[in-house]
């Protein structure tokens, strides 16, 4: 026997049956329903809560990454803006205090460049350009005196706006640099000049690469056309178009977007326009890398959820199984009790009816008896009536018939009487004879031979006579139904120990299949439902045997026959 067989609930084996009560007794259906409803009620809120919790966490994490990116971008913008503003103001200061004459003096200009380099840093060279775009004074590492700048953007911008900061470009010297320029008005000559300084992009680069970018981000500058101005780690080469999507419209505020590149990677990109310059600070981070903590949270959540679901399912299944089994057992007990009561009631009714009939018949029978007896006496005792043998014989046959009728009514009465009786002292042989007498006629018609093997010296015992009769009658009836005409029934009784009596009813009928043997004592189990069997006979018999404190066993072989063996206590039978 496997473990499952041991823990298997009893109701699993049941047959739901047919008819209107089908659903009422379909325990597997009840069980399935209970498990489904309980699981639904318990698991749906759990899953919904887990889902909501996960979403809330994800949203807060996402908005936090956006905020962090925005903050980093703003900081970078501020740093860049400050750096450039500082250097523009330095040019302003020079223009105010030195005047164009002094600045055109190359020696002085060299001194100025030296002090700019030492105090601010980042300056590469410095020059003065007249209003036609020609460089009229220059100090720096390159030989750029006399170069014509009139066609360059920054020149035009400076002439029109007063100051300008150029894009990073390669220019005449073929290294990336940027130009800071300021228009200077010479009051003496009434001419316009431009003070121009070149800034080293190295300082820019250092500033941006030193930003603290957790999770391997990238920070660089682009201009309004999206051309990369400072080196980027992964998003394109210097002075090439950035590989990320379009640059957003001008905005004073920092903006953050989620951007998907053509290869499907999602990036969180922060943009910030640096005011007064052509630059835009871009901070690019891979979204997946930033949402790394979310993965851990998701795993933890999933793990907890599956653990809870498993625990809930186990508990629900256990509870449902337990409850349905309880219902099943209660139903079985109820059905057995109800039908035993019904049976007892019916037997009592039959008993009362029999007693009534017997009583009604007994009185006329007694009169017939006496009258016939009187006639017989008259013939014997009175001389005026001839001693007619033929008449006497007739009267005697009347008397015989009356006494036969009397025996029948007496047996009927005794049978009916015992239904109400509780405990009585019983001689088993008499009881068996009495019961078998009832069925002897049927046995004769069907030529079933009945063999009784009951010793005379069986001890008398105290038990409920009516119940014992019913048990016996049911078993013999059952055997009759199992047998074909011409079968043989064998009834035996023995006192196996001092306090136990064993008796068996053996037939050579159709037998019981192995699969049904376990269920023959269940109420409503019947193989003869179509021919009007109720499936109650054996269940009632079983109940009665238990009430009397006995045990009942069955052995059967299909086609060979069946033996029912009942062991009854001889003393101290449990009061039913």
């Amino acid at each position, binding site marked *: 026997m496997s473990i499952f067989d041991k823990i298997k609930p009893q109701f699993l084996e049941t047959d739901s049956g047919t008819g209107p009560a089908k659903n009422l007794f379909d325990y597997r259906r009840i069980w399935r329903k209970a498990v489904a409803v309980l699981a639904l009620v318990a698991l749906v809120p759990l899953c919904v809560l887990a889902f909501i919790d996960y979403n809330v966490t994800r949203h807060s994490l996402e908005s936090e990454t956006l905020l962090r990116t925005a903050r980093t971008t703003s900081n970078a913008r501020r740093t860049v803006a400050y750096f450039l503003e500082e250097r523009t103001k330095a040019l302003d200061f020079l223009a105010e205090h030195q005047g164009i004459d002094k600045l055109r003096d190359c020696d002085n200009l060299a001194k100025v460049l030296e002090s700019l380099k030492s105090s601010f840093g980042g300056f590469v060279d410095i020059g003065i350009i007249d209003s036609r775009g020609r460089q009229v004074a220059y100090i720096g590492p390159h030989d750029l005196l006399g170069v014509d700048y009139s066609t360059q953007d920054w020149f035009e911008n400076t002439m029109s706006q007063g100051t300008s900061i150029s894009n990073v470009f390669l220019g005449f010297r073929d290294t990336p640099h940027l130009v800071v320029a300021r228009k200077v008005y010479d009051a003496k000559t009434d001419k316009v000049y431009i003070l121009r300084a070149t800034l080293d992009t190295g300082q820019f680069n250092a500033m941006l690469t030193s930003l603290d970018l957790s999770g391997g981000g990238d920070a660089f500058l682009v201009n309004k056309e999206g051309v990369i101005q400072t080196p980027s780690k992964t998003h394109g080469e210097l002075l090439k178009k950035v590989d990320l999507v379009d640059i957003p419209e001008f905005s004073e505020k920092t903006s953050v977007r989620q951007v998907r590149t053509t290869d499907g990677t999602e990036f969180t990109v922060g943009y910030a326009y640096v005011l007064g310059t052509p630059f835009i600070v871009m901070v690019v981070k891979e979204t997946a890398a930033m949402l790394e903590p979310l993965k851990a949270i998701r795993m933890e959540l999933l793990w907890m959820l599956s653990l809870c679901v498993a625990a809930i399912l186990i508990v629900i299944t256990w509870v449902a199984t337990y409850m349905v089994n309880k219902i099943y057992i209660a139903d079985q007990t109820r059905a057995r009790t109800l039908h035993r009561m019904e049976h007892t009631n019916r037997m009592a009714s039959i008993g009362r009816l029999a*007693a009534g009939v*017997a*009583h009604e018949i*007994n*009185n006329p*029978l*007694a*009169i*017939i*008896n*006496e*009258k016939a*007896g*009187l006639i017989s*006496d008259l013939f*014997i*005792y009175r001389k005026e009536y001839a001693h007619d043998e033929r008449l006497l014989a007739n009267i005697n046959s009347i008397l015989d018939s*009356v*006494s036969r*009728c*009397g025996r029948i009514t*007496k047996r009927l*009465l*005794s049978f*009916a*009487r*015992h239904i*109400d*009786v509780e405990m009585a002292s019983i001689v088993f042989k008499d009881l068996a004879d009495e019961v078998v007498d009832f069925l002897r006629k049927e046995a004769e018609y069907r030529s079933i031979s009945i063999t009784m093997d009951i010793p005379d010296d069986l001890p008398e015992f105290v038990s409920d006579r009516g119940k014992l009769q019913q048990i016996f009658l049911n078993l013999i009836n059952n055997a009759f139904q199992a047998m074909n005409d011409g079968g043989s029934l064998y009834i035996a009784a023995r006192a196996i120990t001092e306090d136990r009596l064993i008796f068996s009813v053996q037939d050579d009928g159709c037998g019981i299949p192995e699969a049904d043997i376990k269920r023959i004592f269940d109420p409503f189990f019947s193989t003869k439902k179509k021919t009007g069997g109720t499936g109650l006979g054996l269940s009632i018999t079983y109940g009665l045997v238990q009430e009397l404190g006995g045990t009942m066993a069955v052995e059967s072989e299909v086609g060979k026959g069946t033996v029912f063996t009942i062991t009854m206590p001889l003393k101290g039978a449990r009061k039913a």
Partner: protein
Amino acid sequence: MRVLLVDDEVELVSAMAERLGYRGLDADWTDNGEDAIRMAAETEYAVAVLDMKMPRMGGLELREKLAFHHPGMRFIFLSGHGSESDFKAGCAAGCSYLIKPIQLEDLVDMIREVVGEELS
């Protein structure tokens, strides 16, 4: 020896009385308890054979009344009803009990038996 038969079935009891007469027992009969008490007051009966179930006065009640006035009287109950409680009540009263229909010889034997007990 005189015997008193009491049964509500006149046909039965009259025939029974006549048959007892043939067997040497003087039997008087009546079909109700009141007459039985009256007759017992006039005549000395050794044995009374009473039907259990009779209209107005049943066998047990009649027995009590008769026994009160005639302490020496013996009783035999007859019944067409095989009720266990009747049987027990009859036996408790210390009497014999027969179920109808009876063999007259059984009754005669029983009468002789209960009287014989008295004599011995």
